[in-house]
């Protein structure tokens, strides 16, 4: 995608935010509903499938830029999930879903089983689960081989939400047949990594949204006869918030290879650092905003509640850090630097 097209798309998002992202819409979505009008407007504007226009035109950079921008505005829509599902299907050589939303899910510790063409098991806390037509995930067959599977949403849905009020629903399969599947080595890791890499991008976006709000507030709110942004202690908090935001953004960039694929290593680096930034950044943003930021009224919480949720989805920092640490220690100190420079 050329810079111009991307620019146009980002501006389209801004326009939709101005028109659609009302308080009513946000409050209505907070509890698991999908803001249909907003999502449809995004579909009409070509944002939901901007990553499929043409492979030459739509690089992973643009895909990330859009997801990041939507997260920056804390829009309660499954853009990241839809793009992640498409990436996974494409990599597995599977066709895209015909109708409705396709999202991604991760099975619980036992994993999903695909035996004799039948799916059993539960996908826990699937993002926007109740709204999906189809879901992409990994399953293991009787021989232990891993598959990327796309299946229609099962009948059994147990509804729940994350801290931001986005739907996170358990989907239980009891002998359903998949729509399609393909044997893929490391399929479970691929799904987890793809989800984590997208969450890192979203964290970077939500942090930058929070930073903008907090900066504006610091310039307007006066105490002791001057804007609080003139106090050095507040400036330093803002400097750290900006640094963490920049770090999250750089880390998220590591999450994807040039071809838009991810890997356990890339996702581990991206999600570990971005999650850390989410923690530090959300805390600072609230500290700078005082009581106002702690209200339902002020929109900061749309970003910060997402930050607190996203850092734990598709593996929290500790989980990825442990994996990464084991990998690094297994290879030994001398292998660390060459690994970093080969990314």
């Amino acid at each position, binding site marked *: 995608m050329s810079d111009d097209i991307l620019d146009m798309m980002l501006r389209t998002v801004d326009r939709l935010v101005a028109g659609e992202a009302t308080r009513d819409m946000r409050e209505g979505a907070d509890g698991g509903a999908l803001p249909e009008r907003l999502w449809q407007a995004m579909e009409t504007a070509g944002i939901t499938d901007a990553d499929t226009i043409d492979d030459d035109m739509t690089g992973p950079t643009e895909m990330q830029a859009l997801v990041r921008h939507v997260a920056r505005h804390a829009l309660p829509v499954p853009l990241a999930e839809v793009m992640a599902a498409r990436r996974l299907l494409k990599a597995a050589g599977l066709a895209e879903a015909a109708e409705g939303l396709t999202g991604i899910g991760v099975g619980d510790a036992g994993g999903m089983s695909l035996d004799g063409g039948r799916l059993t098991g539960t996908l826990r806390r699937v993002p926007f689960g109740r709204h999906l037509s189809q879901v992409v995930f990994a399953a293991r067959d009787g021989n232990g081989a891993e598959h990327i599977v796309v299946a229609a949403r099962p009948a059994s849905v147990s509804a729940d939400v994350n801290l931001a009020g986005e739907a996170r629903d358990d989907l239980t399969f009891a002998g359903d047949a998949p729509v399609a599947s393909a044997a893929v080595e490391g399929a479970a890791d691929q799904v987890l990594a793809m989800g984590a890499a997208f969450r890192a991008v979203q964290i970077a976006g939500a942090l930058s949204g929070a930073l903008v709000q907090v900066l504006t507030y610091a310039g307007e709110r006066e105490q002791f006869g001057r804007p609080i942004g003139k106090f050095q202690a507040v400036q330093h908090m803002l400097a750290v918030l900006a640094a963490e935001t920049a770090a999250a953004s750089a880390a998220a*960039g590591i999450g994807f290879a040039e071809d838009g694929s991810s890997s356990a290593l890339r996702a581990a680096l991206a999600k570990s650092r971005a999650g850390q930034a989410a923690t530090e950044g959300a805390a600072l943003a609230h500290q700078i905003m005082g009581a106002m930021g702690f209200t339902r009224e002020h929109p900061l919480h749309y970003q910060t509640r997402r930050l607190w949720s996203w850092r734990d989805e598709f593996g929290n920092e500790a989980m990825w850090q442990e994996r990464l640490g084991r990998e690094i220690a297994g290879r030994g100190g001398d292998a660390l630097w060459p690994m970093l420079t080969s990314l």
Partner: protein
Amino acid sequence: MQEFTFAPTAMPPAAEAIRTEVRAFLKEARDTGLYTPRRHSWSSFDPAFSAECGRRGFIGMTWPEEYGGRGRSALERYVMTEEMLAGGAPVGAHWVADRQSGHQILHHGSERAKREILPKICAGTCFFGIGMSEPDSGSDLAAARTRAVQVDGGWRITGRKIWTSNAHRAHYLIVLARTAARSDSNRHAGLSQFIVPLDAEGIEVRPIYNLYGGHDFNEVVFDGVFAPDDMMIGEEGSGWTMVTGELAFERSGPDRFLSTVQLLLEIIDGAGPQPDRMAAVEIGRKVAELATLRRMSTSIAGMLDRDLRPATEAALVKDLGTAFEQSIPEMARRLLALEPRIDREDADLAALLGHTIVAAPAFTIRGGTREILRGMIARGLGLR
């Protein structure tokens, strides 16, 4: 500006070729005993090692060949430096000259200064120190009081510099001095920079021992030291602009997050191939931070290569980077049951940890304190 963007920089093939070359050189240097990685860090002063780097063409790489350089790109140089640092190479002797002084001379120095000095720097036989700080002007550099008075054919410098690293073993200092009174309307006016050989008449270098008894920095007293006109760098009064430009180079490089990487490597090895969960989590956390810092730093290298001036971004990377390197000894203390020691020069882990603990406070002071950097970032955010 509300946000700082760090666009990724793809290293060109030539830079990757340099990477291979430097790695091969470092391996050879370790094998032949030229240095011991896990004992040294980049600030170790080792003239023999520097001379070898000079012979291999690893100093002044981006400068024109007529001055001894190799005409390479900034990204090639970046890769060379990060490989040296990651490899624990003792590049401290030529570091300042390569990183900033030579750069200043090339861009703002007289033809004589370029001809006489740059080739020696490239050869790894001429070392520089930075004469900015003074007893009463540390963070507030513009308050410098050392003054230079115009005389026949040059200037006479009188005053006192402090914390001058390597002044006792370098060949030259670049000295920031007042050539005109500071005006109320412009605090940054009236400062100029001079190249001063450390064996010039009227210079006295007095050691200042650091907290572990090491002798790295000094007090330097100037008593009417003569600097000829062509050893002024840049125009009279341009000192402030040059100093701040120089600091962008000093702040963004990999030397601002790799100072303790040798200890990190030791911790990884110390944890063994099957670390417990706590060790694994801590290692993973630090490695993710390191990967992110490297990405930000290479991004700045790309900006410098495109002649941009990412001063705020550099401040931001230094702030994050020095906090990272400062956290490594504490990580070692959490993971390894080990009493740090400082009474030996050997390469064992206890000595490496001991040395790192006592060196670490300087990371967030040298090159601009954390607080000053955060002030710069706040300025970049439009808050001041």
